[in-house]
């Protein structure tokens, strides 16, 4: 290996070692069309004790201004006690709450996206918060799994 080639390899490796938010998002695809997937999603969220607080109608807002869009919603949800407890100790987490899952149509199928709770955890490495972030991760993954199936 020539010195030039070795240096080039090192440069590529150095670039690759920078984090690329590998698991920054939790995503799932459902075989179900949007209305069915939406129903399953809401049911899966409620089954884990969360209250759905609001559905943001993204496509309707776009269409009102003549922008074309497939079905697109943001589902907000939370648990009152959990929200009260965590924001009392860490009010800066208000910016990330309530939790949300985005769902949009992809032809006859549907795609769901949520930010990975561990991404927020990375910003707030407080050991006391870890169980909460772990629980959110487990719950959102379980919700995604249920909708995926």
């Amino acid at each position: 290996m020539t010195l030039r080639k070795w240096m080039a390899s090192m440069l590529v490796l150095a670039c690759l070692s920078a984090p690329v938010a590998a698991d920054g998002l939790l995503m799932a695809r459902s075989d179900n069309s949007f209305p069915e997937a939406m129903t399953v999603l809401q049911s899966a969220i409620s089954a884990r004790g969360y209250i759905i607080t609001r559905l943001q109608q993204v496509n309707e807002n776009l269409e009102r201004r003549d922008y074309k869009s497939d079905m697109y919603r943001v589902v907000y949800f939370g648990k009152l006690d959990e929200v009260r407890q965590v924001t009392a100790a860490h009010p800066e987490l208000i910016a990330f709450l309530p939790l949300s899952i985005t769902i949009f149509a992809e032809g006859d199928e549907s795609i769901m996206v949520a930010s990975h709770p561990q991404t927020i955890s990375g910003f707030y490495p407080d050991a006391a918060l870890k169980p909460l972030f772990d629980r959110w991760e487990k719950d959102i993954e379980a919700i995604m799994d249920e909708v995926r199936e």
Partner: protein
Amino acid sequence: MLLRSIALLLLAGLGAAAHAAAPGGAQLYARNCASCHGVKGDGGIGVPLALPSFQAGISDDYLRQTIRHGRPGRVMPAFPSLGAEEVEAIVRHVRSWNKGPAVAYSPASIVGDPVHGKQLFGKYCVACHGANGEGAKGTGVTFSRPRDLPIMAPALHNPGFLAAAPDAMIKATLMNGREGTPMQSYLKLGLKEKDIDDLVSYVRSFETQPLGSSAAMVEAETPVIIRESPYDLNTTVERVKTAVTTHNFFYGRVQTLEYGMTPPASENPKQVIVYFCNISLLNQALAIDPRVGMFLPCRVSIFEKNGKVQVMSVNPKVLSRLFNNSELNQLCEQLEQSYTAIMEEATL
């Protein structure tokens, strides 16, 4: 004989249990890849992996390296948390769509003239792959490109691509083209093998050049932008509502953080969210990446604690890294400036 049969049955049972416990390639693919690449590899946000010409042109190792390194800044994430066996299982699943013979490429370098290669690149490649190999724009799915275009021109000046694709694979793609995509055979375009070697050497020279713009991500100094308000909570909320309208957004709604979780009379009135939007900006953001809706509409939170009122929002610069999408960089920087200006105006 009976003992032997029992032993065989036990072994078979143990094997089946182990098999059931370890997720197979199809399961791993469904969990990690299908949301972007489609359950059957027909694409969407990501490359249509089942495309016959794609399968015919890649090696197993190209897939392995791509899963390992991803494409920094180009949506495809790296998967460092997957073990070697899991990566292998996904590779086997993806390769089950390959109907032709498996291809393996030599890791050896191809010697060519990168100066001549650069001239050829300017003539034959920039229209699709960009002047500096930054690749085509958009991710796929309904919002960002016509669905009759099966594949986006990849970013060649990307450390993930350069680590995954050996010279011989780049050469084979140039020689054969990729049927079903705009990538044509350069031999049919009239180039000689020597020209193609020169092109390969130029693409490889990206490794020694500064990181391509499409692979560079903006850095967020802090995940949340916070400003202290000299006003009481209600006045601050009103000032935020006024400030968003002076920065080309329309004010959408005001609610407490606990809205919907408890009866209105029980909501904590000292944690308030102001939602606002700019529909044109929203459409632009979704065209760049259809997944960004999870951070929309725009919002500023206002809260009071110990008599102190603070205004804050998630730093939009965090988002481009979260989505591994460098095309969001400019938009995120623009949004960070807008959010900061709104909060500073409201707390002035």
